[in-house]
């Protein structure tokens, strides 16, 4: 079997839908139980897997957004950031945007959503506000540059 990109993209779409649904359900649960460590780990794993899968197929805008979400969740895992309603709402916005982006990743004519740059900045700000108390923020996305120029996915 050689690399069959179409088959991989189909698997990616199905995986992404499953991951995003799991993340959404867990975020809803987190609103009620904001200290629940396992729920935070579930959301972290969803973002991590989505980041890795998108990177594998070189859907870089999506990978960078998932990476930014993963960074916030990593700080929540380490209790550097806390699951406030505002932070949960921010992550839910990111999940919504990823859900919009997934079906369009192979569309060469697609536009970069205007919400993407704003959301990436908001997520990065949350991480930098916790800098010094926790792990080093992920390099602000090479992606920021790529996204601003409208480059990125394939």
């Amino acid at each position: 079997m050689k690399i069959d990109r179409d088959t991989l993209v189909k698997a990616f779409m199905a995986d992404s839908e499953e991951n995003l649904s799991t993340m959404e359900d867990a975020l809803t649960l987190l609103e009620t139980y904001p200290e629940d460590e396992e729920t935070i780990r579930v959301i972290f794993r969803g973002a991590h897997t989505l980041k890795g899968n998108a990177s594998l197929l070189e859907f870089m805008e999506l990978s960078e957004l998932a990476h930014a979400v993963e960074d916030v969740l990593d700080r929540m895992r380490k209790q550097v950031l806390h699951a406030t309603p505002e932070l949960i709402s921010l992550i839910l916005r990111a999940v919504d945007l990823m859900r919009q982006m997934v079906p369009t990743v192979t569309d060469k004519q697609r536009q970069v959503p205007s919400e993407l740059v704003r959301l990436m900045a908001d997520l990065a700000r949350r991480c930098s506000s916790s800098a010094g108390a926790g792990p080093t923020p992920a390099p602000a996305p090479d992606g920021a540059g790529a996204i601003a120029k409208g480059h990125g996915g394939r």
Partner: protein
Amino acid sequence: MSVKNRKKILLVDDSSTSLLMTCMLLSEENYELITARDGVEGFHKAQDEIPDLILLDVVMPNMDGIETCKVLRACKKTEGIPVIMITSRGGVASLEASYASGCNDYVIKPIDSGELLAKVKNCLGEWNAEE
């Protein structure tokens, strides 16, 4: 290589996309590939199938790759099976934890096919002087 002598590799990853990609990368080498979707299933399959090599993702539900590798090393039936950990870029802590758990080698995602094949062959002892 006859079917009987085919080397068996167990791939453990919670992402079906990633599993599929790794299967595609390894499929031309005539290995027998078996898969598991988390550490618990991976450990059970390792005990049942006694593969020649295990490729283990780090971040997984139920039991992550680090814990799975520790359990594999603590079990008589699986303690000697080589393990290659599949880890994410930039995770130095994860690399240290991987080696501490007893893995033989690691590959960083997104996987480079040449690097993966070289490390797989190395762990399976498939290099020879002529190559």
